[in-house]
């Protein structure tokens, strides 16, 4: 028994961290954040080069054959940098195909997902906060799909959509198909742009194992969000330490005020304590299927919630400047808001985890 990440995993994090530090420092992130598209093709190309297009996909399809735990570790680092990219949707769609696709579907799409020749995303949410497989309602008719999905990340960049439909099934739709309409929505988190996607008799293919794996796909997505918040919160703590360590008030450093120091200590205690939960929940997806759904729900609720509290404190400790558009805090603050709500708020996840625990 060994509860910790391996040297390879540390190396993976360091590699991605090095890439993020060099290729997506806050100054660069700012450009993308303020930009029209929210996308940086070069950055994404670099991520694909590192293998982030198919981290968990089988090596047979050009993937790296890694585990959900590795994915979570990468997601954490991307959260640290609030890295804008199609990573989230692309990864979730890849898992759906890998777990639920037919051999043909997999052979046809996965190598292109791994290489990034095709950008994919997952369309899960519907109106009225219907994120969960049992709530999906889109109907198919003779190989065509009709209805609307919301909060689809990087939909404008995607060539392929994995769409949650009624019966908890998953359908593949090509973005270029007739009847697919993508309407960008002005989302709060400008590091991950979202769109509403309407399907009007758009031709689709069902993933044969879709409804068997839809919950598992959702759980993996929950882990990605939790890990992202863990990284984002940690970066906010670091930013706060840096800021309060240089900011002078009443003749001394802000950090010399006990109230400030204690607030930072509380943030650090809160966030650092959630890291092991994040690891466990990710590991459970790989190895402990019975515990995986429950662990994912708890991790998503708890980590994204604590991260939001840390983001709130970081904002407050930055003083007035923290409220400005120019201050970098907002980019992570809004990312934490996104992670906390997408796929279901902590309240929703807690009700789910309670049910899964048999309470």
């Amino acid at each position, binding site marked *: 028994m060994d509860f910790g990440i391996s040297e390879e995993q540390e190396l993976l994090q360091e590699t991605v961290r090095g890439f993020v530090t060099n290729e997506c420092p806050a100054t660069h992130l700012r450009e993308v954040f303020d930009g029209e598209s929210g996308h940086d093709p070069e950055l994404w190309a670099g991520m694909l080069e590192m293998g982030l297009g198919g981290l968990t996909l089988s090596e047979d399809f050009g993937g790296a054959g890694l585990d959900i735990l590795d994915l979570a570790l990468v997601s954490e680092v991307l959260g640290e940098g609030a890295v804008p990219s199609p990573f989230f949707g692309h990864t979730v769609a890849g898992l759906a195909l890998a777990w639920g696709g037919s051999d043909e579907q997999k052979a046809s799409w996965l190598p292109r997902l791994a290489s990034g020749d095709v950008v994919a995303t997952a369309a899960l*949410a519907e109106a*009225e*906060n219907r994120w969960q497989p049992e709530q999906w309602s889109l109907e198919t008719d003779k190989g065509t799909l009709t209805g609307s999905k*919301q*909060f689809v990340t990087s939909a404008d960049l995607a060539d392929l959509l994995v769409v949650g439909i009624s019966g908890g099934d998953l359908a593949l739709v090509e973005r270029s198909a007739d009847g697919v309409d993508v309407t960008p*929505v*002005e*989302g*709060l*988190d*400008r590091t991950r742009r*979202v769109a509403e996607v309407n399907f009007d008799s758009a031709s689709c293919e069902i993933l044969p194992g879709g409804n068997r794996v839809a919950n598992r796909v959702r759980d993996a997505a929950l882990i990605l969000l939790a890990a992202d918040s863990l990284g984002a919160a940690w970066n906010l703590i670091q930013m706060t330490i840096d800021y309060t360590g240089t900011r*002078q*008030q*009443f*003749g*001394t450093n802000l950090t*010399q*005020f006990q*109230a*400030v120091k204690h607030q930072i200590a509380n943030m650090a205690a809160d966030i650092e304590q959630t890291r092991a939960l994040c690891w466990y929940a990710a590991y459970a997806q790989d190895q402990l299927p019975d515990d995986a759904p429950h662990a994912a729900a708890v991790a998503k609720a708890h980590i994204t919630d604590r991260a939001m509290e840390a983001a*709130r404190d970081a*904002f*407050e400790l930055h*003083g*007035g*400047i*923290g*409220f*400005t*558009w*120019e*201050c970098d*805090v*907002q980019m992570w*603050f*809004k990312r934490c*808001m*996104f992670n906390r*709500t*997408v796929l*279901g*708020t*902590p*309240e*929703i996840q807690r009700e789910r985890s309670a049910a899964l625990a048999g309470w």
Partner: protein
Amino acid sequence: MNLEYSEEYVAFRAEVREFLQGWPLTGDEAQLPVHEQEIRFRRRGIERGYVYRNFPRAYGGSEQTPDVLRERIIREEYAEASAPGDSAGQGPSMLAPTLLELGTEAQRERFIAPTLAGEISWCQGYSEPGAGSDLASLQTRAELQGDEWVINGHKIWTTTAHEADFMFGLFRTEPQAPKHAGISYLLVDMKAPGIEIRPLREMTGASMFNEVFFDNVRTPAENIVGKRGEGWQVSRATLKHERNLIGDPNFMRRAYLSLLQLARDTTRNGRPAIEDPSIRQELAQIEGFFMSLEYTGARLLTATARNEEAKVILPMMTMKLYGTDLRQRITRLALDLLENRSLIAPTEEEGSHGAPEGRPGTWTADYMSAIAISIAGGASNIQRNIIGERALGLPRDLRTPK
């Protein structure tokens, strides 16, 4: 304790209400620019004794005997009619009382009446990038050259700077003097050459604040309020008013009622969220905080009316801290109720003062503003120090030796 209005007050309310039938203006007057209409109607209110009751007639007020009840009735009825009465702008609410207390006769005569009427508008120049809660470390300098102050530096968090005719603010006039002692309170024409205003964008996407840059900006020597080097003391009179503003219970009431409405309009498991036991508990807890704040407001009004403010120092000082916390509780629950809808970026309108109530974007912006409020007008930590030291008699913080 008596929460009934006596007959006298019932009659007074009817009288005010009848007067307010006159708003909006009709006939030819309705063709005037809105700002002009507002000035006219405000002047009528002053004549009737409804508006600026605490200011002498000599300076454009209506000079009425203090009567908290009448004032409350007026406020309620004006709000109901959306009519222009006492302005909440920084000129009437902050500068005018300061001039009344500490200005020269010439300053009072020149500025107070047009400020109250709305003919001269003001912005505030206290904060600087390096000096938020710690005003003593201000850097923007004003040097007396002949009969003019020459100003160089940089102010921030200035609301309505682009609309204001004048700024009242703090400037370092005695660079050799230590900390507070070197600061003076000056009035500056915002049309003066050398002033540059840049809107400051907030994380909500709106631009309620500005930066103001001074490059050899000149203002007459007589535009100083109080003595040279005593600006700090002058500003404290003003700041008192601002702290009160931030704790505005009407604002909180609207936010609270809006939250209840949201809980009625939102669904949980197919039923209104307000029926969900968990949401009900949170709402009811918020109600406890809200009612405490609301009745504390009434308590403070009565204490003022009775001239017993000395008895309510603690509740007065703790109101902001409590209100800040409550506003955060309210907006946080609103976001949880909104779920996905909280993820849409607020529009500029939704991030600004007077944003349309109850819209998801307004809530999202308000969630962020509520955190910012714990910083504005003295950060919460500073408030806690003040409460501890001034209201509870606790000792001052340990300081590094100077």
